């Protein structure tokens, strides 16, 4: 499709560009805006590696066409730490070592941020349910859950 002027707010800054609105938001963020946080994993919304926040809602950028974020606020992993100060969820993932290869990390952190906005003190079962659509192949699940629980202020027990 022909390119159109697309304007949205990316990590707190208004941006615009000539973009084919049918391209995926993931492709636009990685290609046109050179971001590295959102990752290509499956292209079908199945793994969560591409997750971003749009207007505060978690979204799978691989199945979201760029035209749908016109006028919206998009926040990526990069945007969680605007001044180099880590978001509490990011800090918790370091403290609890919530990654092995770390390729899925983007989706885990973004989903955790969205979860904690809905429920600032989730229990373990809630965290596990909230992350169940994010795939991790390294088997880092327990460290990831511990990271989210730490970020929520709960005492993680492992």
């Amino acid at each position: 499709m022909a390119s159109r002027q697309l304007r949205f707010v990316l990590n707190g800054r208004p941006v615009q560009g000539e973009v084919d609105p049918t391209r995926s938001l993931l492709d636009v963020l990685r290609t046109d805006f050179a971001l590295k946080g959102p990752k290509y994993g499956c292209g079908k919304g199945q793994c969560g590696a591409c997750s971003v926040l749009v207007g505060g809602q978690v979204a799978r950028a691989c199945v979201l066409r760029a035209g749908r974020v016109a006028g919206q606020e998009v926040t990526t992993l990069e945007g969680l730490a605007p001044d180099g100060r880590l978001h509490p969820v990011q800090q918790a993932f370091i403290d609890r070592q919530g990654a092995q290869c770390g390729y899925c990390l983007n989706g885990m952190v973004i989903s955790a941020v969205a979860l904690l906005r809905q429920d600032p003190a989730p229990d373990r079962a809630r965290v596990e349910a909230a992350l169940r659509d994010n795939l991790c192949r390294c088997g880092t699940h327990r460290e990831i859950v511990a990271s989210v629980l730490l970020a929520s202020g709960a005492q993680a027990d492992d």
Partner: protein
Amino acid sequence: MTEGGMISVYEDRPEGRMTHVQIDGRGQVTAFNGHVDLGTGIQTALAQIVAEELGCTLEAVTVVLGDTGRTPNQGPTIASETIQVAAVPLRKAAAQLGQFLAGEGARRLNAPLAEVETREGRALWQQTEVAFGDLVAGHNLAMRLDPDMPVKDPAGYRIVGRPVGRVDLPAKVTGQFDYIQDIRVPGMVHGHVIRPPYAGRDSGPFIGTSLLGWDEAAIATRPGFLAVVREGDFLAVVAETAHQARTLAEALPVHWRQPPPGPDLSDLRHALKAAPSMPRVLERSGDVEAALAGADHRAARSYVWPYHLHGSIGPSCAVADWNGGAPVVWSGTQNPHMLQGDLAQLVGLEPDRIEVRRHQAAGCYGRNCADDVAGDALLLARALGRPVRVQLTRAQEHLWEPRGAAQLMEVSGGLKAGHLHAYTLDTWYPSNRGPNLALLLTGRISPEPRSADMGDRTAIPPYRIAHKRITVHDMAPLVRAAWMRGVSALPNTFAHESFVDEMAAEAGEDPVAFRLKHLDDPRTRDLVIKTAEEAGWQARSGPRLRREGRMAYGQGFAFATYVHGTFPGTAAASSAWVCDVAVDTRTGEITLTRVFVGQDQGLVINPDGVRQQIHGNVIQTASRTLLEEVTVDAITPAPQSWGSYPIQSFDTLPEIRSMLIARPGDPALGVGESAAVPAAAAIANAIFDATGVRLREAPFTPERMRAGLAELGGAPPLPAPDAGQKPRRRRWAAWAGGIAGALTLGAVALPMARALPPQAAPSAASFAAPLLERGRQVFATGDCAVCHTAQDGSPNAGGRPMKTPFGTVFTTNLTPDPETGLGNWSFAAFDRAMRRGISRDGHNLYPAFPYTAFAKMDGEDMYALYAYLQTLAPVRAAVPRARMVAPLNLRPVNAAWNLLYLDRAPLVDDPARSQAWNRGRYLVEGAGHCSACHSPRSALGAEKGGAAALSGAEVDGWWAPALAGTAPALRGWDEDRLFAYLGTGHAPGLASAAGPMAPVVAGLATLPEADRRAMAVYLASLAAPDVAPAAVPTLAEVTPGPGARLFRGACASCHEPGLAGALTAAQVPLARSAAIRAPTRATLRSLLREGITAPLELPLRDMPAFGEELSDHQIDQIADFLRARYAPDLKPFPDS
């Protein structure tokens, strides 16, 4: 030489002089190792080792891994041997550098060397100290590695053995880290590979010889196109951007010779035994045959392990720069030096002309497509003379990665006097090291079957058995296969440790005690005893069969010492499992609830890292054992997404506890795989304890569990939804013939309509603006553009095929092109066509064109529409001829049809109804022609009237739900919800527009609000009065099976998300789905195949298309699962 000073330790190796470690004048240390970090954290562990031996801080150390230009060739990063093997020279080099710096420090501080201490990057003596950087500044010195260099006594370790965080994590958690997928090179363009149809196969004469041709002209003028590159069966499109490359590659017409059928892998046991293999006896002791014959009890068992995907979360990627014949390749490879050799062979250069720069990729756990894509990128970079990046798609990675190999193990053994007396293992392992795909596709290497010798890992059981024979049957891959975590050791241990458990039960002994009876090695005994104690092992003399209601509970044990490398191999860490399972005896679902792992890995470098590896091994291998298998059938050669290859998710995690046995005085052993090795046997043994069922074929699916329970006479399983497997019958073909016959009789004597002369339409400028706006609204009400625009065609230029039971009609060109469109149509001709279905030249139009509705339009609207159409941009586009079944291909037959069904009477306002209602009826029944889709049609293709009008119909694979009668009332439609839906496509909680309805709403959304309100008023009046909305059905419990699994993997992330509020999740609960409640599977099939691409101007959501990756049978399995779970009040879909 570096300004400011540099002291290094090197080694002269076959590939040249390689530096192991160096320190500069600022005290910064760089270490080089030929292995790579696969996500297991060896970068951090190596930094710990260097910092420890050198006496500097961890922060001062940078570790360079795998770059061929800078690191020694230490072979592939496999078999968990980085710490155990590859780190050895680095450790000595760091110690040597540390010793040198201590000596320099002693000189500088005027201190006796024996009293100088080095730590935290300083040499210290009494109250004086000097920083390493100051010792280095001004000196340039390279020392040869002393292979006899003593290393530190572990008792004095300060950094090794302490928990340390991953050095790469801060960059990763903020999106600053450069994975291979993030590498961007100036001037870079993008390649998209097009793989042959023989997905995942690597031997046979068709490999490299199946490409017949392609039509470059079809894409050559499209934006971004740079080149099509072909060599043998290697084919790729290169374009300016990745999106363009993929779009163009998907649009390129390519002709392949179809490959012969692949091997039948539906019965793995048979397939593995039937294929050619070469037996290799690994160990023979005593007289096995005689011992078996003389045993008190003997048994023969076989165990089957399936094909698995490595399943990296990030599909492989590479960048290559030809660089004037000295190529640089950026890669996520597991084996940079091996890749360097492959690439050299691919492009005919000496290996040392090619530099491989290694970057981290998503975890790979073995050989995935990382090396293949590097070959792709290099071929393209050479062809283009520019840097080229290639990113594989998820489907390409899934289809082509060398799979973790299937394996067959046959064991026979016998007991004598309560001891394991005789034991044989035969193991078939169809795999090699995964030759680079580009070498195969281009024909650089011949596609003959090649075997490798990796089936012998941990093939020797750890037990003292007097008579044994162990044989590995080396064989070439049946489908592309290579090593994967626990390579061959995991399946071999599945066999050993299941069988020994069976023998213990047979002997009536506790499984742990029985094992200990046959173990001599004190370190192994220690591990088994301590693990059983710490884990709370409950001794038993047979399966305990603990039951609570329908749930059965059990505990299992297994252990192994992972032996890797060329036989007889080297031992890595030993791991023992005690695990608990819960088995739902009705559904067959197995839940791993708790795993305790005891592990002996000698010296622990980083306890956090070791525990994390244990957790990763437990979770990943539990996933492989319980869920995963690559299914190969005639339709889908392999899974193409996570939909058909589900893996472990967060909501079914076991509790994991681990115990690291402290042995700081023993050498560090690899921990990357060991805890995986006992997994399958431990879980199988726990299932046996719970149920008495022995599962000997993985994965342990609910189907296999139910079958095992049924054999024992367990509880009857729940009825399972079953996809119809019969071929689709096309009943209407016969049906249409009969109708056509009836019509022909009447048609013969009818007069034909006359042609109206061509007459140039008035110029667009001659129409007044209000008239054109009215015309635009009529055009939007009728959604003319939807049907009159072909897929990827120019708007309104027609050519869209309309499938009817009587054949295929193509829509006409509405633009004012004089020859192919309406440019030479007078208003009179247009009006006649719209109202009577007669074209300007006098022939009858097929009633797929809803002129029966348009006949109700008033004259002003008709003229406004005519005027509006004349202002469209003219497009020259001839429309294909209709393809109708005989004799409906005779247009006069349609004249007879008109006589029967065309009601030309205009609508008369009903004075008893409101103005809005009358306006709504006019829009719905006239220009809106809602009945064209929502009314069922008679055998003759006419819309049914009366009670059947707007009672719902299936059109071209889509169910258009009922708009009249009790059905809409039961679903809860009312005026407000209809109004919301007509303006946005979405009635919250009730419905979202999909399929052909979404663009219809996009048109309606541009109408004046009053018109949409009027339509809502009228449509609401069609619903039966006094019918309360029905309750949304409660979800049914459905027996786990293929449909449920496909749904979980492919659909659940959006349709039953664990985290609410996602912008990309479905808007309407599935229990509300009209498609699931439709009379047939057709709409679900259409939805699943085509997905939803909703107009961007509406607040709707999209759904990916699954037609490329799921077979028709899988789509029907999902459809039947959806019906059973979300519409349990309805009957299953009829077979079709």
